[in-house]
């Protein structure tokens, strides 16, 4: 019957710490890092002019028609 609050508090403090740190870590390795890598990979060999020509040829640019 003793230390009821202390025991509960210890359990919940530890749990809260683990859950919050764990979810932050999981987000970092699951979401943030892959996204950074995706952007790196995309822009490593990106040629904007080539992209522009492709979009122009497809006809989606109103001020830059295909012909």
């Amino acid at each position, binding site marked *: *019957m003793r230390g*009821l609050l202390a025991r509960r508090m210890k359990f919940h403090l530890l749990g809260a710490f683990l859950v919050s740190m764990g979810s932050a870590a999981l987000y970092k390795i699951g979401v943030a890092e892959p*996204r950074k890598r*995706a*952007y790196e990979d*995309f822009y490593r060999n990106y040629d904007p002019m080539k*992209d522009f020509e*492709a*979009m122009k040829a*497809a*006809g*989606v640019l109103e001020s830059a028609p295909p012909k």
Partner: protein
Amino acid sequence: MLASRAFSLVGRRSICTSLCLRAHGHGVVKAEDYTLPSYVDRRDVPLPEVAFVRDLSAQQRALKEKEKASWSALSVDEKVELYRIKFNETYAEMKKGTNEWKTILGGVLFFLGLTGFILIWQKNFMYGPIPHTFSEEWLSAQTKRMLDMRVNPVEGISAQWDFEKNEWKK
């Protein structure tokens, strides 16, 4: 006293305040149950304000007398009886779970299913046709336009399309 005499002229029972009651020898109004300290089974209240059993039988009163002597003279059953006089449930009984969650889960799922039926009926009998922009031709033309515009080329739809081979990436 003068007031109660005046009242007795009008009619003894017609108007009577508590002052009048006291004058006639009644005393204080009986306290209602809900105003008195009550017993409660709660995990955070280990010693409730009153004992559980309020009116003891003759047997229980005898036991209470015996409790005033040495406790080692009490048998185990008597100790349990004394406990049950003072408390309703043990901590173990208090903390025991119920099967209520099954009822709740069943009710929730039932109503979800019922809602599903209602939605199916609505789609079938109530709603009109969906817009023409949801047809296969429109959607494929729409997707082609999105790819031509290079929508979301890093992580989104244009990243899933292979522009060299003109097909979806594996």
